[in-house]
């Protein structure tokens, strides 16, 4: 209410402004000591920023299930990995070009999400969580056991036959723009879906599924649409991730990967527009910084009681997660409202 008139358009247009800034970042030579190792436009920083954007988008897609429809899926890694591995396998095995491979890889993710979603959604609540977890585990085992020597097992699978403008350190900016485009697509798709009539039904399912049934709608179909849409976005993210890292790694298939998406969503604030994005960016950035911190001299000099736990980013993130669940139920996105609420009370 008391925002100055000059700032009022800013409230409405700040996402567009932020987008313009993000598009122009590769041309910047600004350096942010402590936040990034080199100048923003350097390949290393751009790579980290691109990863942050991809995980922000993945968390946003995952929140379509968790925060928007109230479905606790523990198998989201499977659809991400389907996009990565299917595209990678088509590239290395069939020698198809990149674009046909990417399209077929995406299709593989969609089909898998539709098939497995239709089975898992027969369960509700925690049963659904366990079944999705079991399916994802099957995928993870399949990749690690390396049938016929095609997936590369624990070594992962390096992508071959990518177009030249997507490979190599001098083209990192292109990869960054692709990651940004993926983020914009995800945000637009989620926003559009949540505002559509289907999105209203999702909201109803989240609040009270029985009531939606009483109104004469079958939740199953609506939940399946949410599941397939989230799976599609994850598979697309898998293709982008393949480009960013130049290959597929089995870590992307594990349940820990899904759990990290869950941590991002809860960290940022589930069910809000920007929360999962913020959580994904923060988590990815923190993980990379903590890993490089653990390898640096600052930590090696500490006594072992502090050094040992601090050398494990996953330990810190797990503890941080528990703290967030306790102290900040709405996540980072809920923080301004909480502070305002406290101010109003005082």
């Amino acid at each position, binding site marked *: 209410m008391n925002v100055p008139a000059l700032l009022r358009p800013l409230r409405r247009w700040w996402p567009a402004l932020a987008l313009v800034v993000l598009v122009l970042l590769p041309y910047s030579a600004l350096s942010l000591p402590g936040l990034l190792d080199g100048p923003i436009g350097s390949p290393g920083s751009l790579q980290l920023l691109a990863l942050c954007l991809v995980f922000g988008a993945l968390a946003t897609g995952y929140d379509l299930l968790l925060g928007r429809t109230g479905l606790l899926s523990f198998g989201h890694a499977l659809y991400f990995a389907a996009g990565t591995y299917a595209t990678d396998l088509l590239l290395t095995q069939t020698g198809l070009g990149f674009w046909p491979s990417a399209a077929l890889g995406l299709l593989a993710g969609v089909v898998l999400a539709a098939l497995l979603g239709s089975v898992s959604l027969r*369960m509700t609540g925690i049963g659904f969580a366990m079944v999705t977890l079991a399916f994802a*585990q099957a995928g993870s085992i399949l990749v690690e056991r390396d049938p016929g020597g095609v997936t590369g097992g624990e070594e992962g699978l390096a992508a071959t036959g990518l177009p030249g403008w997507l490979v190599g350190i001098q083209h990192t900016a292109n990869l960054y723009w692709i990651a940004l485009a993926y983020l914009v697509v995800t945000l637009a798709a989620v926003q559009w879906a949540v505002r559509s009539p289907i999105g209203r039904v999702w909201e109803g399912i989240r609040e009270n599924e029985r009531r939606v049934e009483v109104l004469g709608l079958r939740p199953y179909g609506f939940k399946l649409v949410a599941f397939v849409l989230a799976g599609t976005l994850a598979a697309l993210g898998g293709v982008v991730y393949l480009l960013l890292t130049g290959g597929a790694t089995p870590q992307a298939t594990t349940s820990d990967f899904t759990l990290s998406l869950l941590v991002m969503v809860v960290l940022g604030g589930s069910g809000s527009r920007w929360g999962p994005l913020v959580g994904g960016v923060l988590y990815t950035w923190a993980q990379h910084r903590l890993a490089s911190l653990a390898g640096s001299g600052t930590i090696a000099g500490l006594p072992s009681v502090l050094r040992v736990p601090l050398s494990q980013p996953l330990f810190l993130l797990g503890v941080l*997660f*528990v703290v967030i*669940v306790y102290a900040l139920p709405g996540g980072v996105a809920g923080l301004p409202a909480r502070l305002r609420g406290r101010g109003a009370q005082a």
Partner: protein
Amino acid sequence: MSTVVLLSVTGLGLGALYFLVASGLSLIFGLMDVLNFAHGALLSIGAYATWWAASHSFGYPLALLFGTAVGTLASVALELGLIRPLYRRPREQVLATVGVGLAVPALLSAIWGADARTFPVPASLGGTFTLLGATVPVDRLVLIGAALVVLLALKAFLGRTRHGLVVRAGVEDRAMVTALGIDVRRAFTLVFAIGGAAAALAGGLAGLYFGSVDPTQGSSLLIFGFVVVVMGGLGSVSGAAVACVVVGLVQQFANYYSTAGLGDLSVVVLLAALLLVRPSGLTGRLA
């Protein structure tokens, strides 16, 4: 024939491990609606405590007892410290256990390294014996025996004691038990203690079965524990007992008679098929 016997005994041994994990999960979920993602962490704590004691020249039985005690304490601490303040918020409870499930294996690998540590198997349990023409390792029998003891003890506890009665009644209808003036929350700590003890025992026995301990053992066993819980019907100990035998046997036979890894997949396919036919699991109890 001897192969079939060996595969059956090994499958049953693996099923015994799954049962120890799943029985606690199933009780905790049935009573409190909490899917305990920290159960794998409890198993790992039990495994490392047993390994630590066994490599410091405790005997194996004493080391197993020590590991189980440490796991039980960890489980009670988890319930009192993290789960209890979040009562009435089941989703936050699940999330808190997810955090613990991430942090504990990371801490274990920070202290003892991410690589597998060799488990000192005592000579009396490292041998083999002959059963119907097959040479079977003794440790399989230990596992099956332990699971049977736990199953019978749980059955006796749930069926014959007053606390067991409260737990069973709480699984059926928690609100009604509270309305009758019984403090169910004391039973919550109790099932966490039982579940943690069973998981830590499974950890100590897993060290014997696999011959090594590593930080990720807990989470990979936990996933099959989930499969067993869903198949058996959430909240049912007998259902978990039947399901773990099926899962263990299917996994072993499929792994042997087809390529390795297919056994793990066939378990999941079995789960999907069962859910298509009977969405509420073997015992027909709804989640």
